[in-house]
């Protein structure tokens, strides 16, 4: 019997305590913010959208290799001997035409693993978080500064160079083989 009344007393008392808590909160300031109208300043380390400063990129592929989800695609063309592509802001010489530097933000897992290995600190995560789109394709960001024609021209040049190189190599091999043949004949 005592237990019974104690239970009732406890129920009423704890319910009143709980109601006290909620009543107190009814008159405290809300902690939420009205998002689209009020925006929070994100800390500088905030990992949101990726950004690549192409002026500094040397096309070393470190970021693409570090990415655990393969969301970075880079295509490089070696610069010609007489071409000067300038230097990066920390003094490294650029040796590559980076004709393609695509980041698929739809795949990105925001781990920032690509940021650390970059030797020129050109790939960074920015605090920009508002990049929702209606089309998933729009999340594919092209960073390369080369236009499609320029890229194609460079590719063509590279193909030719490679072909020339291969031809030269073949010629060299042939010459070597001929020389060997001659030698063989001589020996015999």
């Amino acid at each position, binding site marked *: 019997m005592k237990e019974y009344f104690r239970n009732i007393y406890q129920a009423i008392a*704890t319910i009143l*305590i709980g109601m006290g808590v909620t009543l107190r909160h009814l008159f405290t300031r809300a902690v939420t913010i009205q998002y689209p109208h009020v925006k929070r300043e*994100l800390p500088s*380390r905030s*990992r949101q959208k990726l950004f690549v400063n192409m002026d500094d990129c040397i096309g070393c592929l470190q970021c693409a290799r*570090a*990415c655990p989800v393969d969301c970075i695609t880079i295509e490089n063309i070696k610069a010609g001997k007489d071409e000067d592509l300038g230097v990066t802001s920390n003094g490294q010489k650029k040796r590559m035409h980076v004709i393609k530097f695509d980041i698929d933000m739809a795949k990105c897992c925001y781990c*920032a*693993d690509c940021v*650390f290995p970059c030797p020129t600190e050109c790939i960074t995560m920015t605090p920009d978080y508002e990049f929702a789109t209606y089309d998933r394709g729009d999340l594919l960001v092209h960073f390369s500064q080369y236009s499609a024609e320029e890229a194609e021209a460079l590719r063509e040049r590279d193909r030719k160079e490679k072909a020339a190189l291969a031809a030269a190599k073949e010629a060299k091999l042939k010459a070597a083989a001929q020389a060997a043949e001659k030698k063989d004949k001589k020996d015999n």
Partner: protein
Amino acid sequence: MSKSNLPPTQFELEISDDLKTEEMTLSMGPQHPSTHGVLQVILKTDGEIIKSAEPVIGYLHRCFEKHAENVTYHQVIPYTDRLDYIASMNNNLGYAIGLERMMNLEVNERAEYLRVIVAELNRIASHLIALGTYGLDIGAFTPFLYVFRDRELILDLFEELCGARLLYNYIWVGGVAYDAPQGWIDKVKEFTDYFEPKIKEYNDILTFNKIFIERTANVGVIPPEVGINYGVSGPSLRGSGVNFDLRKDAPYSIYDRFDFDVCIGKGEMGTVGDTWDRYWVRVAEMFESVKIIRQACDAIPEGDAKETVPRNIKVPPGDYYMATETPRGELGYYIISDGGKNPNRVKVRSPAYSNLSVLPAIAPGVMIADLVAIIGSLDIVLGEIDR
């Protein structure tokens, strides 16, 4: 209970023979408000009383272990974040320490302290969610938002530290990804001072509420032998009165330097090992975490936290099982290395996986409403169960 392994039941139904009853099969989930994700439980019920419950998992399987074999050691870390997404820091930690032990790597002192601070902060954040969702399962909505309010502050701290709010990729092999920014340690201290009184508020509105106690005490009792036999760990096992905390029993990182208690369930409101005890262990653990964080903040040395991070992770061939105490229990990484760039095998012994497996043993005989309470008190995260 003897060592025979019959599942115990809460109470046997007494139904007279001439009463014609029929069992009903009920599929709870995978879309259900209180299965904490995509868990399905096939229930056989007699009225509201459950005859048997069979969890069906795998709806969130993301092939973590297969992935881990195909990426480099370092690239596994972002994937470990996604196991238990409520307590990512703790997931990073176990994997990193496992590899460090295999590589025999000393870790920078400051990094060790930072690791402990973030791991304990994350433990608080995770327990807060456990509290809130548990209240939600019982039907109290308001505490849920109070805990989110305070968890947000922890996430803000993390965001300032490493830029991410949920999936941190912060604890690396050999150290941490970022050193603490200026004044961050003070902010953590400020947070602990703010947070401690808040726990009393949760107690007022939820923990000691009579209805809440009635709903949770004496429900879903896991006897200690059963819990151990089923591999239950963490707060769920400690709620049954078993003193087993890897931070104390097999200290990793620098946990042996801190003074804290292991909280175990004492059956204050009912039987030892009931859902209220499991809940209460979590509340008490938040106090302990605050204690650890305070000590760590006071003792943290100056230095470069990234000093000991190796450029290339070369793991000698061998295998190692690294178990750490996450908010949910013993998280084990069984890592096998063949000396190559990628791990040969990363097996995750996820605590929630084993914790959930005890459900068929304790569910029979309880009501549907109690089943919800039991699932809530086990504090499962399906991301970790299904991996």
